[in-house]
């Protein structure tokens, strides 16, 4: 390149003259002005052409296109992490915006608590870096070189900072959030500077300031003016608006970049005038010794850490970029509008990978525009001029917002459009701008349309934001996808009428009887649902995945186009969905704090999703291991529910119940029976938990016995409950009594006796519902108790006064509702006992009334007695043989039969 010879001496003299007039030479302002000037001078005179840019700036991108079209280069050096270069070829099939991502799940250098490490660098069409990359892809003879520090170095430095900070302030911050990178990030970091800048420019955000005072101005300027202005602003922000930490980091990176450039040039014999260096304007004016191709200083680049980095392209959206970089909503859309406007106004054609075929013809040479001295002077002295497009855009906005407001219940007409237009102009004038910015327009719209209340949910301010912030979502092409995602797309390709590249929601309808092949699609969808439970990417509308249930038909809502990124993230974890699921399940099952029930749930999921009995067995064994390490019976309900489900499922399979399930049951049986004695008088244990552990022991007993357990374990456990009955929670007592009755440690009469006592004691009446509840809880494992329950309930309704009864009824209803299955057992039992017909009612007598009368006989004949010792057997013999004599004796003593 023929270097621009610009003489800055007159300007320097002018500065001196001004300083002389308004202050003293050598003072701070003088110094700063001179430093700014020398920064610009130095950057302009560097033999390697430096192209200053700022992130997502349409002006930078347009200027770069003009520059690249006018004179070709051999090499483009870009300020982007060098390890991301491998992703460049993947861009060809992508729809922007997308982001380069580097991710590390495993590292020997960083502690596991800090993983995963993730970096994303978004690319939009209106960014200079994308235009440079596209140019490189389209022209085979141009080489793109990324020269910034690698993502690994970013984390090395962050981790080092983190450790030093942690020593000073032991706050446990983590690195794990994703770091966003922007090429040419220019936002000033010194708060005072920003506040001053914004206040004086009467703008709200830095991006607005940039857009208004720099971007729009340099958009149409000639190349050398553009460079000088950017160098100047870069220098200003670097010198005055950047805090020390940021500056330190910038310097480190600049040393790195210049070293890499010089290394590359030496290695490939590149001359300075054959290359261009594209970097953020703030870096172009750096003061490191490595700066410039003529400097022989080289930086000693640190080694990479021992970390496994994965790289990929992921789709992003404008709103995601704005969130990541803390920009106000709509910034990206405003830039995009400016970009399109700029393209229209200047007639420049962007480099586009979609139009690859046409572009491969040699790029046309447009003559270099002559330097316009007036333009530079104009920038410093006049407010920016505006294009006719701006005016059209403003009118368009006014019309759109009025229409939008009308749809949202506002009373808005064309008169309001006119008023908004007028007010925007007046506001811009008041804020000393030639043309209203979007924010001026927003203020004007609020002023003119907002009345005393908001008619629907959205006010004008929000509507304006919505109007401007059209969110654009990128997508990644098939070839750039990781194998896992490719496989998903391949399998789902079988679905008819579903196009995964469409932005609209796709409805997948599957009938497995008609087309059993579709089961594979269903499997894939369920797996994605499992891995991304909260994502809307797949949403089952009809159909369920349950053990033992055959799938017949399913329908799903698919949103692959807009949520592709989440799927791609899974691609970093493994090469297939099954592998990722296995890996996640194994990691989860190996956690030290996991509960047995959670592992059982994993077993269930693995059966449903993976079809790998060996893996399910591995998990099952883990569940048993966890059960042995459990303490307390808090998880009994969950464990019981899951293991019963698994037992039912395995009973229907040809292989029958696997050994591990039986072994689990045996362990559970021993564990729960052993825990029983302590639980009855432990206030921390709920009756439901005891009910579940008793159910576990009693309903699954046959499997446990198969594995060598014995009922005596249970009997011993129940016998060792030695707390007195009044100390046991009423609901637990019901459970205890039922269990005792079940294993024949207690007879029905003693329970009746117990209730008789309750009924006779007015102080205990209140408690009866609780006792009853205990028996209800026992129904699942001892359905036989239902008869007694009906009896007790009938007596309650018959005898207890309404005043006490009615509050109970409510309570009881609510309690019974939580145990619906018990309710059914109870109703069934009641239907058998009570008369079905009115005619029977007359003669009907409650069975227990007759039973009570004969209870002595019955109990002696059928019920086992409480004490099963030899002595009692003898006593029973005597009583039964001499029963008539004993009855007579009792009658003579005037003692009633019952």
């Amino acid at each position, binding site marked *: 390149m023929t270097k621009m010879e610009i003489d800055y001496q007159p300007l320097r003299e002018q500065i001196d003259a001004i300083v002389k007039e308004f202050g003293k030479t050598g003072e701070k302002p003088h110094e700063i002005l001179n430093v700014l000037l020398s920064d610009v001078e130095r950057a302009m005179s560097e033999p390697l052409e430096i192209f200053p840019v700022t992130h997502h700036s349409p002006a930078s991108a347009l200027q770069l296109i003009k520059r690249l079209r006018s004179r070709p280069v051999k090499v483009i050096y870009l300020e982007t992490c060098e390890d991301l270069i491998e992703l460049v070829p993947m861009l060809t099939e992508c729809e922007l915006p997308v982001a380069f991502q580097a991710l590390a799940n495993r590292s020997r250098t960083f502690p596991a608590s800090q993983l995963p490490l993730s970096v994303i660098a978004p690319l939009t069409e209106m960014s200079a870096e994308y235009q440079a990359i596209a140019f490189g892809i389209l022209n085979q003879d141009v080489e793109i070189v990324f020269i910034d520090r690698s993502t690994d170095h970013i984390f090395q430095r962050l981790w080092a900072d983190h450790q030093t900070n942690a020593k000073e302030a032991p706050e446990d911050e983590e690195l794990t959030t994703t770091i966003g990178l922007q090429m040419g990030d220019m936002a000033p970091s010194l708060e005072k500077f920003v506040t001053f800048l914004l*206040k*004086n420019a009467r703008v709200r955000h830095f991006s607005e300031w940039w857009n208004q005072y720099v971007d729009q101005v340099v958009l149409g300027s000639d190349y050398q003016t553009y460079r000088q202005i950017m160098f100047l602003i870069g220098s200003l922000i670097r010198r005055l608006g950047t805090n020390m930490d940021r500056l330190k980091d910038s310097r480190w990176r600049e040393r790195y970049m210049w070293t890499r450039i010089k290394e590359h040039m030496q290695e490939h014999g590149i001359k300075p005038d054959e290359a261009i260096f594209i970097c953020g304007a703030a870096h172009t004016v750096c003061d490191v010794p490595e700066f410039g191709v003529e400097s022989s200083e080289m930086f000693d680049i640190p080694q990479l850490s021992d970390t496994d980095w994965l790289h990929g392209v992921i789709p992003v959206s404008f709103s995601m970029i704005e969130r990541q970089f803390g920009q106000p909503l709509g910034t990206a859309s405003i830039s995009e509008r400016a970009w399109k406007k700029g393209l229209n106004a200047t007639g420049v054609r962007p480099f586009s990978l979609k139009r690859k075929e046409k572009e491969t013809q040699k790029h046309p040479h447009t003559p270099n525009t002559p330097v316009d001295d007036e333009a530079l002077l104009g920038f410093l002295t006049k407010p920016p001029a505006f294009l006719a497009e701006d005016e059209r855009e403003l009118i368009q906005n006014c019309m759109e917002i009025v229409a939008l407001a009308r749809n949202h219940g506002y*009373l808005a007409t064309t*008169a309001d459009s006119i*008023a908004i237009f*007028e*007010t925007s102009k*007046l*506001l811009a*004038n*008041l*804020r*000393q701008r030639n043309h209203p910015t979007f924010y001026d327009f927003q*203020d*004007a719209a*609020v*002023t*003119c349309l*907002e*009345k*005393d*209340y908001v008619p629907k949910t959205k006010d004008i301010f929000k509507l304006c934001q919505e109007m401007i912030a059209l969110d654009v979502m990128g997508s990644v092409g098939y070839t750039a996808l990781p194998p896992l995602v490719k496989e998903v797309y391949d399998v789902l390709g079988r679905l008819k009428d579903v196009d995964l590249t469409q932005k609209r929601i796709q409805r997948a309808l599957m009938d497995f009887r008609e087309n059993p092949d579709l089961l594979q699609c269903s499997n894939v969808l369920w797996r994605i649902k499992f891995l991304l439970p909260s994502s809307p990417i797949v949403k089952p509308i009809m159909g369920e995945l349950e053990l033992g249930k055959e799938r017949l038909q399913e329908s799903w809502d698919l949103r692959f186009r807009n949520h592709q990124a989440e799927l791609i993230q899974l691609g970093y974890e493994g090469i297939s969905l099954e592998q990722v699921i296995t890996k996640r399940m194994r990691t989860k099952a190996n956690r030290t704090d996991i509960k047995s029930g959670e592992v059982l749930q994993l077993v269930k999921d693995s059966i449903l999703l993976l079809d790998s009995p060996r893996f399910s067995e591995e998990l099952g064994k883990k569940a048993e291991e966890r059960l042995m390490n459990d303490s307390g019976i808090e998880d009994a309900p969950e464990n019981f529910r899951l293991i019963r489900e698994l037992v039912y499922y395995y009973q229907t399979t040809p292989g029958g119940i696997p050994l591990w399930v039986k072994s689990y049951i045996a362990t559970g049986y021993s564990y729960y029976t052993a825990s029983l004695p302590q639980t009855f008088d432990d206030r921390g244990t709920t009756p439901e938990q005891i009910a579940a552990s008793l159910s576990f022991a009693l309903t699954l007993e046959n499997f446990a016995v198969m594995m060598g357990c014995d009922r005596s374990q249970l009997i011993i456990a129940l016998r060792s409950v030695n707390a007195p009955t009044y100390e046991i929670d009423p609901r637990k007592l019901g459970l205890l009594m039922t269990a005792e009755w079940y294993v024949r440690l207690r007879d029905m009469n003693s329970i009746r006796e117990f209730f008789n006592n309750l009924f006779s004691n007015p102080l205990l009446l209140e408690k009866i519902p609780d006792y009853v509840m205990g028996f209800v809880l026992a129904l699942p494992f001892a359905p036989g108790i239902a008869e007694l329950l009906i009896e007790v309930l009938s007596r309650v309704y018959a005898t207890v006064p309404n005043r006490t009864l009615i509050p109970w009824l409510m309570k009881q209803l609510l309690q019974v509702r939580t145990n619906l299955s018990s309710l059914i057992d109870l109703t069934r039992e009641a239907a058998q006992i009570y008369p079905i017909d009115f005619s029977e009612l007359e003669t009907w007598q409650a069975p227990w009334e007759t039973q009570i009368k004969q209870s002595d006989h019955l109990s002696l004949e059928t019920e086992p007695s409480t004490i099963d010792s030899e002595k009692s057997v003898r006593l029973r013999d005597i009583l039964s043989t001499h029963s008539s004599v004993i009855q007579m004796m009792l009658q003579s003593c005037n003692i009633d039969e019952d």
Partner: protein
Amino acid sequence: MSGKKKTKKTTAKTKAKTSPSKKSKPKDSDETLLRAPAEMKYAEELTYLVKQDEDAKPFSWQLSPRMVRIFVLGSEKSDKLDREIQQKWYGDYTIVERAIVTLASDRGLLLIGDPGTGKSWLAELLAAAISGNSVNVLQGTVGTTEDQIKYSWNIAQVIAEGQSRDSLIPSPLMVAMKEGSMGRFEELTRCTSDVQDALISLMSEKYIKIPELEIGNMVYAKPGFNVIATANSRDRGVNDMSSALKRRFNFIHIPVVTSKKIEREIIEFRTKDLMARHGFKVEIPPTLLEILIQTFNDLRKYNASQGAEEQRIESALSTAEQIGVIEDTVLYSTFFSEGKMDGYTMGRSLVGALVRRLPEDVSALSKFWHAVVTKQSGDDWDSFAKGGKDAMTRI
């Protein structure tokens, strides 16, 4: 924030004069006034700004929009003025900017907000800056009639001389039209809807017809005429504006100040101003100011958390109330406790200022006092809490 009583008085005065159009501008005189309108009070600043102003001015405005902004919000270094212009209204600067451009446009300005948020004060400042006259004020009440919005007749003169322009009493808005200046309409929504609608033709056609007269029966508005109205958002629904009238106004909502920093600035600014009327200077101890602002903030939260109306404190907890409390405290301590301002007096003043309904307000305040104020630690807080308690027991 500006005294409503004052504006009422001015209205009455304007109406009583036979030809107020000539005299509606307050005369600069040596007479001391209890409260001078903004254009008199800041006459010096206004004259200076007029002299400096080189920008284009809309209609017959005496200042360009940029200078109006500087007058209201104070000057910055970047404004390149060789003297400082004091900030007079505190809050979001975009509110002021939007208000100014509205007045330069075809629509009227309606400032809407809770009582005590500074609507009337902003209206007065704007009118003073734009037309050098802020006293063409009409106070809306339930009893306001259409005559008061347009014009009425001096009955005695009509009987003696017949109907003529001489016997006509123009309303402040009519005066503003003739002058091409800003007319103010305070509490617009207190008027009944049909009376409000008298404004519609006045604002769109910009003339008033006097059908009673045969000659000279039209009063046309001169360029520069516009209306600044204020409305109370608490009264919304009492007399809703018709949508036709709404269309002729740009509504600007003035929020209650919640930023402690701005609130402190407002209180200091206004208190100094009020105290200057009494002719003495007071420095409010920063700790007391802190206590006051904190208490009001807590009270707002407390009020918001109460479900039932009777458990809330009825009074609007705006900055104006805080200024009232400070003023009361200063006056009390100056005249009755040898100029020493303390927490005890302020606690009493606060209770006195906020209790409006008996006994609901006292019980609500007492509940708040025990839950929040007494829990604070510090000498000033203690005496403040004690003062409040004493006041409550005495009510």
